[in-house]
C-alpha cells in the first residue's frame, strides 16, 4: 500500500493561557495521497494559516500527530526538522519571501546549497526549475527587478527545485493581480499534471475551484471535504 504524503491526526493548537487562550485548531485529521491537489479554504481566523505552518514544519502542534511522508515530524529535533523542511517540503509564501539582493537563480539555488549539492549541479537544476515556471531568461534578475507574478513564480521554482514530496502554498495569489494569479495557477496545474502533490491555502473561490479536492475549515475544524476531480 502506498503511504500518504500527509497524515495528520487530531491536530490541536492553542495560543496563550488561561482566559486568553485561543483555540486555533480544534482537532484536525486529514490525509493527502501522492499526486493530489488539495485546496484548503476558510475565512480569516479559521485556523488555516496555523494549519499551514504546522504542515510546513514551521510550527509545532499543541497535541496530535503529524506524519510527513511517513516521518513523525512532531518529535524531530532541530537538525532533522531543518532536513525535513529542506528535502520533503517546498514552501510558497503569500509575500513571496525571496531573499533581497540575490538573483532569481541564486534564490532558487539556495535550498540546494543547504542540501549540500555541488555548484554545477545546483546551477543545472535551478535553470531547469526556472524553465518550468517560464522564467529561464530572468535568472540573473534580482527580486526588485521582477513583477509580483514573476517573483511568485521564482518562489515556486525555489519550492520545487529540491523535488520535495509536498508543495505547500500559503495564499500564493493573495498579493497578485488577476493576470499574475492566472500565470501562477497555470504553473500549479502544470505541476499537478506532472504528478506533484500540492496543498494550497486560499480564501479565493476561483483558486479553490481549480484544485482536485477542496477542504473547508471553520473555527479550527474541517467542515467540508469534497473531491472535485479525480
Amino acid at each position, binding site marked *: 500500500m502506498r503511504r500518504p504524503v500527509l497524515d495528520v491526526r487530531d491536530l490541536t493548537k492553542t495560543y496563550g493561557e488561561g482566559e486568553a487562550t485561543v483555540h486555533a485548531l480544534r482537532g484536525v485529521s486529514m490525509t493527502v495521497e501522492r499526486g493530489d491537489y488539495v485546496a484548503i479554504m476558510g475565512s480569516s481566523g479559521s485556523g488555516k494559516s496555523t494549519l499551514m505552518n504546522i504542515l510546513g514544519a514551521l510550527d509545532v502542534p499543541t497535541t496530535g500527530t503529524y506524519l510527513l511522508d511517513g516521518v513523525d515530524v512532531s518529535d524531530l529535533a532541530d537538525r532533522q526538522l531543518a532536513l525535513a523542511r529542506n528535502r520533503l517540503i517546498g514552501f510558497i509564501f503569500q509575500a513571496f519571501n525571496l531573499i533581497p539582493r540575490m538573483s532569481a537563480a541564486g534564490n532558487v539555488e539556495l535550498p540546494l546549497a*543547504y542540501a549540500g549539492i555541488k555548484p554545477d549541479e545546483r546551477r543545472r537544476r535551478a535553470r531547469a526549475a526556472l524553465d518550468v515556471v517560464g522564467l529561464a531568461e530572468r535568472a540573473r534578475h534580482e527580486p526588485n527587478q521582477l513583477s509580483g507574478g514573476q517573483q511568485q513564480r521564482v518562489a515556486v521554482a525555489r519550492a520545487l527545485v529540491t523535488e520535495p514530496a509536498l508543495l505547500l502554498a500559503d495564499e500564493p495569489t493573495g498579493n497578485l493581480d488577476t493576470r499574475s494569479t492566472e500565470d501562477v495557477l497555470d504553473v500549479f496545474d502544470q505541476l499537478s499534471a506532472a504528478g506533484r502533490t500540492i496543498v494550497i491555502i486560499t480564501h479565493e473561490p476561483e483558486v479553490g475551484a481549480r484544485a482536485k479536492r477542496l477542504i473547508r475549515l471553520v473555527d479550527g475544524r474541517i467542515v467540508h471535504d469534497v473531491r472535485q476531480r479525480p
Partner: protein
Amino acid sequence: MSLTFALRGLSANKLRSSLTMLGILIGVAAVILLVAVGNGSAKAISDRIEALGTNTITVMSAGRTGSALTTETAGALADPVLAPDVRSVSPVVSASATVTYEGADHEVSSFVGTTPGWFAASNTPVGRGAAFTTDDEAQGRRVVVLGPTVAEELFPGADPIDQQVTVGGALFTVIGVLAGKSSTGFQDANDTAVAPLTAVRQVLTGYGSLNSILVEASSPAQVDAVQSQVSTILGLSLDETQYRIQNASQLLETQTETADTFTTLLGAVAAISLLVGGIGITNIMLVTVTERTREIGIRKALGAPRRVILTQFMIEATLLSVLGGLLGVAAALIGSSFEIVGVRPVIVPSSVGLALGVSIAIGLFFGGLPAARAARLRPIDALRYE
C-alpha cells in the same frame, strides 16, 4: 558554503560594511599609534638622560643668596678617605659668550669652563683634535674645544683646528671639535664650547663661585653611595638649603615613570576609542541581524540548519572585525613612520596583539550573540518578524 553566504551578505551592504570596518580601523589604529607615541617619547627622554651619563651626579647650587660652591668645595669632594667611590670631580662654570673669528661671530649659549676629567664624566667625547690637558688647565692656557654647531657656524667648510677665535676680548686657540650629540630637546646640545676652568674664570666669569660640580662615580652601581658620600662632605661646610644634588640615574627613573604614566594614559584614551568602535560593531550587528530576522526565517523555512545560519553571521562579524583590525594595524604601521608632535613613535608589539584581539573578540561576541538568538527562533516567529 557559509563563507560564500557571508561574503554575499557583506557585499549586499557595502556602505554599512565599510563604515563598520572604518570604526574598528580607527579604534585599532588609535590604540597602536597612541601607545607607540607614548613609548617613543619615553624612549626619547631616556636616551637624552642616558646621554648625560648615568654614573654621575651633579651638585648644583640652590637658594637665592648666590652660589655657595667654590673650587675648595670641589677639592674637598676629591677625598679618597671620605669619598672612596668618586672617580673624578669636575668643577664647572658656564656663561654665554660671543665667539668671533675673522668678522664672523656666534653667540654660544653655554661656554663651559672645567677640568679635563669633565669630558669623560659628562659623556662628551672629542671628535677631532684633542681635549685640553691638566697642564693646560694649571697654566691657564687659552685653548678651546668647540661644539659642532659653533665650528660649523664660524668655520663653514674649513678646518677650525689651530685657528684663533676671540672670546670676551681674549684670543683662544681651537684645539678640537666635540663629537656631535643627538639633540632631542629645545636646546641644541652641540651649541657649546669647552675651555680650561682657569682660562674661563680669568676671561669671562671672574673668580666667584662655580655653577655646578660634576662628580663621577667609579661605576654606575656606586652612584647612590657616591651621592651619600658627597652629601656628607658637603654637610661639613654648607647648609643643606644651599645646594642640591641631581642624580642622573634617579632622574632617569623618575622620567621613565612619568613617561610610563603618560603611555598608560594615552593607552586608556585609545582603549576608549576602541571600545567605541566595538560598540559600533555591536550596533551594526544588532541592526543587521534584527533587520534580517525575516531572511533568517526564510532560510530556515528552506531548510537551513541552525548551525549554518549561526556560522554565516559569525563569519560576517569576524570578517568585518578582522579586516577592520588588520587595516587598522596597517594604518598604524604607516602612521608610525611619521613624526607625531615631535615624537617618533615606537610600536609596542603587545599593543598590536591586544588591539587586534579585542576587536576580534568584540566582533565575535556581539556579532555572535544576536545571531545565536535569531538562529534559535522558530522559523514561523522569524518569518512573522517585522
